């Protein structure tokens, strides 16, 4: 195996200024969802048999 030239490894590594912002955005979205009661809704959806999924509703 050839030696990995470190300078080339980082050459195309597009650094990403959006990632931290998006992580904060999606974390906030999740927390807002939890706070307005979406967790209960999700739980209720999950524990009922989805008739659409099995094709009878």
């Amino acid at each position: 195996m050839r030696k990995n030239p470190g300078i080339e490894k980082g050459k195309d590594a597009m650094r990403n200024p959006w990632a931290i912002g998006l992580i904060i955005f999606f974390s906030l979205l999740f927390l807002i969802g939890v706070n307005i009661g979406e967790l209960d809704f999700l739980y209720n959806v999950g524990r009922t048999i989805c008739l659409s999924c099995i094709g009878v509703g």
Partner: protein
Amino acid sequence: MNLSLFRRLVQTLVALGTNGYLLFPFTLDIYKGPLKAVCHPGLNCYACPGALLSCPVGAFQNFLAAVRMSAGAIPNLGGIVVGYLGFIGVLVGRVPCGWLCPFGFIQDLLYKIPTPKFSFWRPLRWCKYVVLVGLVILAPLLIVDQVGLGHPWFCKLLCPAGTLLGAFPLLIIKPNLWENLGFWFWNKFFWFVLIVAGVIFISRFFCRLLCPLGAFYSLFNRISLVKLDYIEGNCVHCLACVPACPTGVRAYEERDSRECILCLRCVQACRFGALDFSLRRPLPAPRKTVARAVEPPKRVTQPT
């Protein structure tokens, strides 16, 4: 341990572990415990009797389908699901497709059936975005019945995971459901047969053509904190990575492809170390300080 063997082990453990409610043959019902308040990161039908987690696609559609029923209260728009999936997407891109999705695992197994294999016509990859926007977002939101309730149209019309993991086992443990089978079931059954046939002949056919979850995760492949790194200096253009890729990505010329599910089969196939799994720095690149060249000496004009 061999990387593909390790991935297969992870896929098996996740598929069995998240569908590990073994009491359903006795209770004749699906799992209804507290874990159902958590979504699976992959496509895994929550109508499956063994499913311990909820399906993110099904749950999100149900949020949108019930928006008009909120009656003045703050509508539940599924922020909890979008936030959860978006967070995973920004962290690891399509890693859940390659490593965690039970239906992806089933596709990998079906593709092992020894038959002639065909390539995928690449422009069709855009279909999954149409499915995401049309069937998962717009249809549940806009097509409503008399009382204002929508339906999870992707689950209702198309989802093969629902047919395989939800419908078939439930029809076995609840025989009374057979009486209610009609157009919707046979429509789904038709699509299921078509998709399974496609999966046997074309690698990851459903992921590449129709999966709305893959479409969502793919939006983050270019900014996720992990990425497939291509080291040009090590590449001898032997093309060993091309047949190894289950989604037909040419890793040496398509950087951060939206189709890449980060299964790392190409990394394993490359004997020259030209492909690597690495972290992308989350912060902007520091501005390069370019040393100012020494100004050329001014031409001295001699007085004539």
